[in-house]
């Protein structure tokens, strides 16, 4: 598994998408920084962290993760490398699982980048109230949210295997971002898999009438369903290239 992950990173060498994803991870802190300077938003580090976490895991993250997952799987089809990989040989199940792990690691990297850049922008903006405890707490919150969000992306794996270009993922990601914006604050938001991670991690789930367990179940069902259909599709059907 370690070799596979090491090689996944080698595949990203000179790849623009990795750099773009890092820029995407910096974007929420950057926008919040601009908001602080322009609109007197978020006068403390705690508020800045809270806003960044919300925009990252409920808005930008959804679109960004959809693009990443589509790239991770789609490029193997589009660059005709899947037939090379599978005849090495690597079992289709292992290949799929290792790709999931790579996706998770990529998300963890973006989480670190977002949190560290938030600190940097907060310092540049001269905000008060920074402490290591605050950083650990808010980083943990974003990390937890992004890990739960990762689980909700297994249906996107199937979409990426079924339609191998990035357009459906971008449309899907943009649609879910809009859905998240529309349902945020609504009673049934806790039933939507792609905003539930933020609601759970931030503690906002307490404001809703449903129990957190309902949201956990929604996330789990989404993950299991997506994983099973992507696994069946990938292991039981002919390679399209």
């Amino acid at each position: 598994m370690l070799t596979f992950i090491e090689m996944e990173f080698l595949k990203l060498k000179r790849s623009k998408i990795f750099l773009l994803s890092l820029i995407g991870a910096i974007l929420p802190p950057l926008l919040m920084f601009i908001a602080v300077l322009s609109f007197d938003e978020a006068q403390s580090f705690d508020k800045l962290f809270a806003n960044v976490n919300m925009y990252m895991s409920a808005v930008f993250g959804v679109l960004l993760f959809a693009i990443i997952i589509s790239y991770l799987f789609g490029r193997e089809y589009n660059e005709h490398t899947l037939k090379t990989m599978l005849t090495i040989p690597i079992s289709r199940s292992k290949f799929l699982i290792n790709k999931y792990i790579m996706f998770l690691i990529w998300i963890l990297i973006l989480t670190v980048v977002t949190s560290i850049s938030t600190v940097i922008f907060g310092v540049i903006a001269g905000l008060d109230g920074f402490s290591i405890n605050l950083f650990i707490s808010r980083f943990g919150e974003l990390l937890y949210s992004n890990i739960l969000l990762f689980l909700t992306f297994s249906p996107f794996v199937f979409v990426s295997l079924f339609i191998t270009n990035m357009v459906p993922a971008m449309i899907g990601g943009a649609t879910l971002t809009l859905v998240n914006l529309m349902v945020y604050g609504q009673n049934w938001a806790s039933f939507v898999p792609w905003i539930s991670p933020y609601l759970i991690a931030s503690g906002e789930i307490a404001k809703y009438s449903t129990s957190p367990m309902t949201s956990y179940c929604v996330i789990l069902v989404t993950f299991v369903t997506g994983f099973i259909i992507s696994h069946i599709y990938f292991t039981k059907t002919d390679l399209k290239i």
Partner: protein
Amino acid sequence: MADYIIKTTNLTKKYSKNPVVNSINMHVEKGKIYGLLGKNGAGKTTTMRMLLNLTYPTSGEIFLFGKDTKNYSKEIYSKTGSIIEIPGFYENLTAYENLKIISKLRGNYNPHDITLVLEMVNLENDKSKKFKDFSLGMKQRLGIAAAVMHSPQLLILDEPINGLDPFGIKEIRTLLKRLSHEYGITILISSHILSEIENIADTIGFMDNGILIEEMSKEELYNRLDKYVEFEVSDTNLAIKLLEETGLNENRDFSANDGNIFLYSHLELRDKFNELFVKFGIKVKKVNLCEENLEDFFTRWISYN
């Protein structure tokens, strides 16, 4: 009994009930080069994809190295190298990095081996060039390097000379012959270019419309090629008349056109016919014993079957 490295039993692939590969029984002997010959769309690539587990058969069985591919896939494919259609590599990576990924995942990474294999396909000076900047010929050569890098016992190559210039084709042909004859590697190679298969293969399998029409050794093939004698004569009409008087039938035993007589039967009597022509004042400018070429044979064979 021959030792078969590849053996299929009634191998079939259907798409929406239409068979693209129809119950083929293929036999590839150890250490031999087997050329799979067929038009575009004959089912060659689908057959090779099934052999490599990239496409699942609708029915039938595949045995590689005498073992069922369903149950021994890891063991079998670690001894196999392949190219299916256009070789697939990561465009943002160099030739060396692409080969590194493959060898690392195979668990036999050795920088020296990569350098050697790049030298073998004449890409040693391009090892730091990105794959996206490669020409089609260079991509094919890198594909061959990746296929042979782990010293496989079996190579499955689908149209590996596509995109190569004549010099490159000759190089690859020499390399494949060397791999087979010096190292005993069994090679299954497909092509729609008849001359290429004729040049390289020990055994040829003819495929058309998903059916493996026949497998034959090159010697057997040459024995089956039709032979004929061509006379270039000064008086065609008189030559026809003389041949008919000996009991030969135009169109069945011979044909004529534009000062030429083509004799298809009684070839052993060609010197007698020559004497006959000369005796009756026909100037015979040329007598050639000709052999049907592989293209004509293939066309005739496909039409017949």
